[in-house]
């Protein structure tokens, strides 16, 4: 009994130290991205092709935009793929990132109950937000400092309306996009989501969701994605050359075409717009 | 005269600031049997632990074979063993309990054989008991196994703390016999704390009376505890269950105990001299003190038991037998207080 016990411990110790040694050698690129990007499945589709082309393995962690930027600042990752242009520009200005490159965009939409009590259908985003405020219609917000949330806040500002912080009809969920949509659906309210998540939501409910797209196409609803390499001057250990290879590849003709061809449940999700 | 196996000098042992033992001088001869009697809390267990070389005295010296010996030293480990009050075994089967100490000594002795011998000494058949887990034994069986574990070590000194207290009668008998055999066959020194006065009187070379951490007397006196009542002007004592009055001089405090030396027994209850107090009682026990040939009688007066030492001559004279009515006498001015 005692010997068996000791043997198990020794075995465990051996197994413990094995993997730590093997980490160092291969070409590995660490990326921070957002949960909504990851949830579309785009990276699962693109990254293997990148590995085929360059032999570089990419490990990515998906968090909120705020945390992704923080990870970059702390030198915990080598490259970022996020969609919060104002915050990204500040990130570069602060010296944490370099080579910011726009690669693709999709859009945000306002969704709500089919009955549409606030009569948003067909309005511009500015008019829609004003209608929501006037009607005090239930509106679910991410409330979590994510790219989506920052976008939403900028839209309130553009509509010359104060952010409805303490209003009872403004529901700040502090959670991910799907959770927020579900909460909006439970309360028969409105919310703003990226198209990719909406397509998934629609599919989850077998094509007949309680919330439908009511406002779309407004230029202000554009959701721009970029990659930013972590600044090697700020982070000595950042794998700048691998990051550059990724940045150039994803802006290249092949990857841009792949992005265009990426369909979520039969619908195109992103529009490539990298300038080469 | 050989070196005493134990010599205690100026011992003052305390726990948590309280003194539990205070012994100026004590020796124990090798291969002797010493009894320890006293009420609970008198320090018997502490003394046994010190003699067992398991603890170091807070003040004073205990010499073992004339030398100062520390706990965990080789002499302490391999020559002295203590059987604690209440049966206790380690959480393993009988064989492993008995052979634990043997395995510690290494040197390739036949562990199985020694274990078998030890178990048979306490009346436990090897085949039935060897694989039994500790939880499947009765109190008496467990105590016997614990004793066997110690006997298997063939120790020089065996200390027993109330070995027959929480045990059934059959086991108690086996335990007594096994302990004696160790002394007979191996010359083991036995130091036994027990409430079984009769057994101790039968087998011991010397009996130590322990009270509040002090040793006094030879165990031949009777100790009566407080509280005390004032029974009249200048008269103190107790009223016994049969109405008789036990008189004592004024006690120093209510907790003091009186040491009474019964100096005479007679079959008639009349007073001889003015200072004598006479009490009537029944003989409850008679024992023979092996070494001296003296008789010990325990006489029940009310609910108190008085110890009297008699020569066998006196025994014949009064034809003492248990159940006989007899009168005891003691002198008021000879009473000591502790």
């Amino acid at each position, binding site marked *: *009994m005692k010997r068996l016990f000791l043997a198990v*411990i020794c075995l*465990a*110790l051996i*197994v*413990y130290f094995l*993997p*730590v040694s093997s*980490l*160092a050698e291969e070409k590995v690129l*660490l990326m921070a991205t957002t*949960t909504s990007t990851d*949830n579309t499945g785009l990276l*699962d589709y693109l990254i293997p092709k990148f590995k085929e082309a360059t032999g570089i393995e990419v*490990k*990515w*962690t*998906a*968090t909120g935009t705020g945390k992704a930027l923080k990870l970059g600042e*702390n*030198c*915990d990752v080598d490259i970022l793929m996020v969609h919060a242009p104002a915050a990204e520009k500040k990130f570069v200005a602060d010296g944490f990132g370099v080579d910011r490159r726009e690669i693709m965009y999709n859009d945000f939409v306002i969704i709500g109950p089919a009955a549409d009590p606030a009569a948003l259908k067909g309005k511009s985003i500015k008019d829609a937000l004003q209608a929501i405020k006037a009607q005090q219609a239930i509106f679910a917000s991410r409330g979590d400092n994510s790219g989506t949330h920052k976008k939403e806040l900028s839209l309130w500002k553009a509509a010359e309306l104060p952010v409805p912080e303490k209003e009872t009809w403004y529901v700040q969920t502090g*959670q*991910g996009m*799907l*959770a927020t*949509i*579900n909460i909006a659906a439970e309360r028969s309210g409105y919310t703003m989501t990226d198209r990719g998540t909406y397509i*998934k*939501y629609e599919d*989850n409910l077998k094509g007949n969701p309680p919330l439908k797209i009511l406002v779309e196409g407004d230029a202000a609803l554009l959701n721009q994605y970029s990659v930013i390499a972590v600044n090697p001057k700020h*982070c000595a*250990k950042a794998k700048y050359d691998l990051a550059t290879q990724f940045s150039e590849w994803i802006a290249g003709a092949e990857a841009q075409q792949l992005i265009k061809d990426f369909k979520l449940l039969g619908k195109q999700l992103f529009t490539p717009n990298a300038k080469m | 005269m050989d070196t005493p196996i134990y010599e205690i000098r100026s011992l003052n042992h305390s726990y948590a600031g309280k003194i539990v033992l205070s012994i100026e001088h004590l020796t124990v001869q090798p291969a002797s049997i010493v009894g320890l009697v006293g009420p609970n809390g008198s320090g018997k267990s502490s003394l046994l*632990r010190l003699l*067992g070389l*398991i603890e170091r005295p807070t003040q004073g010296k205990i010499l073992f074979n004339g030398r100062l010996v520390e*706990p*965990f030293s080789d002499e302490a*480990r*391999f020559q*002295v*063993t*203590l*059987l*604690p009050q*209440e049966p*206790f*075994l*380690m*959480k393993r089967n009988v064989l492993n309990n008995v052979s*634990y*100490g043997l395995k*510690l*000594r290494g040197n390739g002795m036949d562990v199985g054989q020694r274990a078998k011998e030890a178990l048979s000494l306490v009346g436990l058949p090897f085949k039935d008991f060897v694989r039994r887990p500790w939880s499947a034994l009765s109190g008496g069986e467990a105590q016997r196994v*614990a004793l066997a*574990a*110690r006997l298997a*070590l063939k120790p020089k000194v065996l200390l027993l703390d109330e070995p027959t207290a929480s045990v059934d009668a059959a086991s108690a008998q086996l335990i007594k016999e096994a302990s004696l055999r160790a002394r007979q066959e191996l010359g083991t020194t036995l130091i036994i704390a027990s409430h079984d006065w009769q057994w101790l009187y039968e087998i011991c070379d010397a009996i130590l009376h322990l009270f509040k951490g002090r040793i006094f007397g030879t165990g031949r006196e009777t100790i009566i505890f407080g509280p005390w009542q004032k029974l009249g002007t200048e008269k103190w004592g107790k009223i016994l269950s049969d109405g008789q009055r036990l008189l004592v001089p004024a006690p120093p405090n209510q907790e003091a105990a009186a040491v009474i030396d019964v100096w005479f027994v007679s079959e008639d209850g009349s007073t001889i001299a003015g200072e004598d107090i006479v009490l009537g009682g029944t003989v409850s026990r008679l024992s023979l003190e092996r070494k001296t040939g003296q008789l010990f009688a325990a006489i029940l007066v009310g609910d108190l038991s008085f110890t009297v030492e008699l020569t066998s001559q006196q025994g014949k004279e009064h034809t003492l037998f248990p159940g006989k009515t007899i009168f005891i006498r003691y002198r008021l001015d000879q009473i000591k207080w502790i």
Partner: protein
Amino acid sequence: MNFLLEGFFQAFDLLLSGNAETYSAIWATVTVSSYSIGSSLLIGIPLGFCLGYFDFRGKKPLRTIVDTMMALPTVFIGLLVYAFLTHRGPLGNFALLFTLPGIAIGQTILALPIVIGLSATAVESLDPKLRITIMSMGANRRQLFISSLWEARHGILAGAIAAYGRVMTEVGISMMVGGNIKWHTRTITTAIALETNKGQFGMGVALGLVLLAIAFAVNVSVSFLRRRD
């Protein structure tokens, strides 16, 4: 509600079809919890034993601290460990962030107070007659220590099981320190968090049941060990 039933059937499907992502998560969970339990037992049992066995000044306050640390929230530990392991932190050079060993460090911190506290209790509950018995049999200090440890094994095992439960089911540390990276540091618990976040409740339930099955298997083997004692 029907995602509960859906999840139940999905659990079987995932396991029997050899779903690669699920098995990768299982492997990650089993690996990282083994590391954590292994190290916390190796460090914690001797420390807990000493805490229970010896008397020293500050014993009571130390015990209170250990008991309080049993209630450390996992996200808090995750945050602390992240602060140390991040590249800009003191241990950044070891590149442990986003790795399984990194998570294991955090989980060890989680498990240690439990192991220490319960081992100390087990030792304190030892009968004082044990010491007398073992010393009478002729043990030296080292043998006394080891034999006492062995006698306390049941209580210590209870501590190990409690620690194991806590470690296997935590999310906060795995998420913050591991980063939930697919194929590498995605454990069952972080996968559940992800799936529920994506709205895939059925999948979340399925993975939860898989975790339960693993915990059950481990406890069955432990009880088998116990019975033989």
